[in-house]
């Protein structure tokens, strides 16, 4: 009875909750390792980037570029998002990573983004708000590019009993603007999930 008279009222006390805090990446070990959503984070981008850049740099088309007296002019276009996840920013970051690698490696001469974005915006306007990838060749040609790099990512998402799995399939390609031929293509896959 005595215990009851002490414990029971105590149970009615509200426990002080632990609040959430902001942290820096170097303050918490493995902060970048944790998956916090079914979207694409830095670790996912690095995985997708590594899979694609490795394949591209080892491809015949890049070998032919390296053999040219001058690096070819290349456009890189937004990767189309055909998934059920809002990953536009992540896809743009992936594109930027590839562009940085190729420019700094002296492999290509990349078209300035401001000129390219202006033309893309014009195409979007004409097409009522969407960028049709089939126009990439026309735009690239207008910019003086010989090749363009583009891609598309699809997903397969499933949910069962509150658990979710999203499988991403990223396809990237290099297209010869003059001939329309695909000179390189690669598929990279990734799975994210929410498990309980």
């Amino acid at each position, binding site marked *: 009875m005595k215990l009851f008279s002490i414990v029971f009222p105590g149970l009615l006390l509200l426990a002080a909750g632990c609040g959430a805090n902001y942290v820096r990446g170097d303050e918490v070990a493995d902060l970048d390792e944790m998956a916090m959503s079914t979207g694409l984070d830095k670790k996912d981008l690095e995985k997708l980037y590594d899979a694609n850049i490795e394949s591209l740099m080892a491809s015949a088309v890049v070998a032919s570029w390296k053999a040219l007296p001058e690096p070819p002019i290349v456009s890189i276009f937004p990767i189309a998002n055909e998934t059920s996840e809002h990953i536009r920013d992540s896809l743009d970051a992936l594109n930027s990573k590839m562009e940085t690698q190729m420019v700094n490696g002296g492999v290509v001469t990349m078209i300035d983004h401001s000129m390219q974005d202006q033309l893309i915006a014009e195409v979007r306007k004409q097409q009522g708000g969407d960028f*049709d990838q089939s126009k990439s060749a026309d735009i690239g040609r207008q910019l003086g590019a010989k090749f363009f790099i583009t891609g598309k990512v699809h997903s397969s998402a499933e949910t069962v009993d509150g658990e979710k799995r999203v499988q991403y399939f990223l396809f990237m390609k290099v297209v010869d603007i003059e001939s329309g031929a695909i000179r390189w293509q690669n598929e990279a896959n990734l799975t994210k999930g929410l498990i309980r």
Partner: protein
Amino acid sequence: MNAARPILFSVLLLAAASAIGCAGYAGQVQDMRTALFQADREKALKEVNGALDLGDGDQYPLKVKSEDTLLLLERASVKHAMNDFRGSSLDYRIADRHLELLDVKRDPVGKIAEWIFSGDAGIYRAPSHEKLMLSTGNMLNYLAMGNLESARVEARRLDLAQQIFADEDEGTPALLGVGDYLSGFAFEMSGRYEQALQQYLDALKDTDYPHLKAVIRDIAPCTSYRTPEIDALLADVAPVTGAATTDGATTADDAVTEPLRCIHPDRETGTLLVVSSVGLAPHKQAVRLPIGAAIVIAGAFLAPDELARANDFAVRGLLKWVNFTELAPAASIYGGVDVAVDGVAAPVELGQDMAAVVQRSWDDVKGKMLAAAIVRMIARAAAGAGTNAAVEAATGESIFGLLAQVVVEGTMTVADTPDTRCWNTLPKTIYITRMEVPAGTHRVNVRWKGARDGGIDTEVNVNAGGFVVLPIHSMR
């Protein structure tokens, strides 16, 4: 008396703790609702930010608690109505990540009884229509911003949610006509006609859209995709109506002759889609149901021993009423909407009767939820009767026992605040107006029916081959 003292002390402490009282979610958002009905959206935004414990509409809770998910949905609706489509879309996306879904059909009554009453520990579980409207609302945000890629992402999310709900409900389709309509529109404007047709057909399964049938007929030649429904529509439907010409002489009944984009990319018209709404959908309010009435409604969902116990407690006067929720009627001061483009009346069709959707969704789960509430109340009544017996035995006085029983029951009943959580700012009725208009600037006039001077006048600029989506919501 010594033995009774700790029992009475604990009972009184419980009473004190519960005396703080809790108005529930309905009380939390009442000021927001009032502000909306006073057409003061800034105040409504301020109220919902206050409920989120935030000073700014662009801030987010550091840790999204259960009610915060729902409050973010409310804020998303208010921002959307204020044309802050980007802010609204961010709120929707964060809410979507934290939304738990209601699964009354598979949960046993006992499990439902654990979470049926609100409290800090109770996770909000959203009914399917709220999940579907989340994707629909966000799709509308992206369409209003002209962002077709993100609109298609939401269309896929909507489709995914519908598949999940259908699978959980033994194949019964989870339809939301207005969501499928907007999905179809997003795919159509993206030039993906097969997917557009699939979505439009799904929309027609839920709601009759006379003008949509004409749209289907017009875009069907853009793809080889065919179904018996499309074949029937192609054989049956009248041409698209509602085209305005540059001199404004056309009436709403004249047929458009401008060829569609898929056949003639150089067409000189664009598509205008006005999505308007009036009022607010039904919301939950706390009620006390007499036990007799409650047993009649929920008896079929109670196990035989639970039913027997409920009846026994009712007869003995130990269980008199049940704390529960009911839907307050949908509220609107307007009876509908009239739309005019360049001074010419435009066709308005029903997009979705959200009041009916919310009511149907509640009616589907009400019986089982009420059964769970009765189970919970039986436990309370048993605890009260047990306390009575214990105190009476300890004190030798029946009056103390009775007093303790009343306090325990009353306190625990107060603590069992019915869960009035639901998305309060869903619209009551949604309307759709779709027109092909010449490229250029157009005056759009939306008037609320029944109002002396309520309405919106605005101008839109439609590009050749392009589109403009104009959301306009009265929220009262």
